[in-house]
């Protein structure tokens, strides 16, 4: 089981809150390592999130939800 974390986009404010802009995979999808699964955004900076490992992905936050940097956004079993 591997947590996927919201990436740290703002180095100045580690507690910055971003947005889960887009999920590219549905709940329960089987993903491969390095597959694009999400796009996140802090202010106007966007970043891609890829699966760190292969497995079945479980989405922990909704699209458009506000998320603190570093918080888990998905789990891969």
């Amino acid at each position, binding site marked *: 089981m591997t947590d996927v974390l919201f990436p740290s986009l703002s180095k100045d404010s580690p507690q910055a809150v971003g*947005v889960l*802009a*887009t999920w*590219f*995979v*549905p709940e*329960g*999808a*089987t*993903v491969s390592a390095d*597959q*694009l699964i999400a*796009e996140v*955004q802090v202010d*106007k900076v*966007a970043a891609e999130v890829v699966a760190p490992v292969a497995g079945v992905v479980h989405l922990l936050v909704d699209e*458009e939800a506000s998320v603190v940097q570093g918080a888990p956004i998905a789990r891969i079993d």
Partner: protein
Amino acid sequence: MTITDTPVAPTPASNRRLTTSKAMVEAIAQEMERNPSVVYLGEDVGAYGGIFSSTAGLVDRFGPDRVIDTPISETAFIGLGIGAAVEGMRPVVELMFADFMGVCLDQIYNHMAKIHFESGGHVTVPMVLTMAVGGGYSDGAQHSQCLWGTFAHLPGMKVVVPSNPADAKGLMTAAIRDDGPVVYMFHKGVMGLPWMAKNARSIADVPEGEHVVPIGQASVAREGRDVTVVTVSLSVHHALDVAEKVTADGIDVEVIDLRSLVPLDSDAILTSVAKTGRLVVVDEDYRSFGLSGEVVATVTDHDPTMLKVPVQRVAVPDVPIPYAHVLEYAVLPRHERIEAAVRRAVAI
């Protein structure tokens, strides 16, 4: 062949969706991998990745010799692309906004589009000219136009206008492989950019590997029997939204996504209008002397009696696009105007 009653297993939810911009980048990257003569050049296409993410990540993969940031002279770098194409390369050149065509139209119209004709067919220009089009986000009269009617009017160039991620990939692949100049117009509102208005139809399944959408083929975005909506680009999304809404009143709308303006798939238009007898054309370009009139003439030149009722045109009235949000939405072909046109077409 055996026919059984065994139900087909439901298609599993796709595990691979992309935004339109990522699909476009994937096509460019695959063609750059496949053919070393493919290069990309334009303003802010390198480290910045294109202001509408049309080239995100490409410079990291292919380096600054193949993904080239140019100075701000559209005449110079489009001319550079034409020269490279004439010498056998396959450049993709980005004009940041279609609105900027005015500063470089001599290169586009008198050189890119005409060299093949004027050389008696001996010299080809296998070049793609990409550009962002469209409004809806308060960028003013000089950054919000579609202008595809202008490009389609000038002979010598193919013109493609994808509305969704899969077509963005397939049409880019086809455009790069085409041996003549292709104008590739991407609407900012279909790119799936996180900082633009959210658009659910800008993120969708995209075939992996090689994917080609032939230039000149429209698609039936939605089948229906009561009225045909012929449109392109972001307006396809709006038309589909309207089509879903009016089903509640028993109106069955067919939506034709032209995908290419040149060549125009007149068969697709005629086939649909022959079925429905009612035509609405939705065009985010200016109303007069443009795509909407061309689509209507395609029908009436063939057989005006196909039309049971007068045609409805929903386009930008002949005014510069306003900056003020409310005024801009008033001139753009958005849901309310499309729905009203559909209802008028079926009410008669």
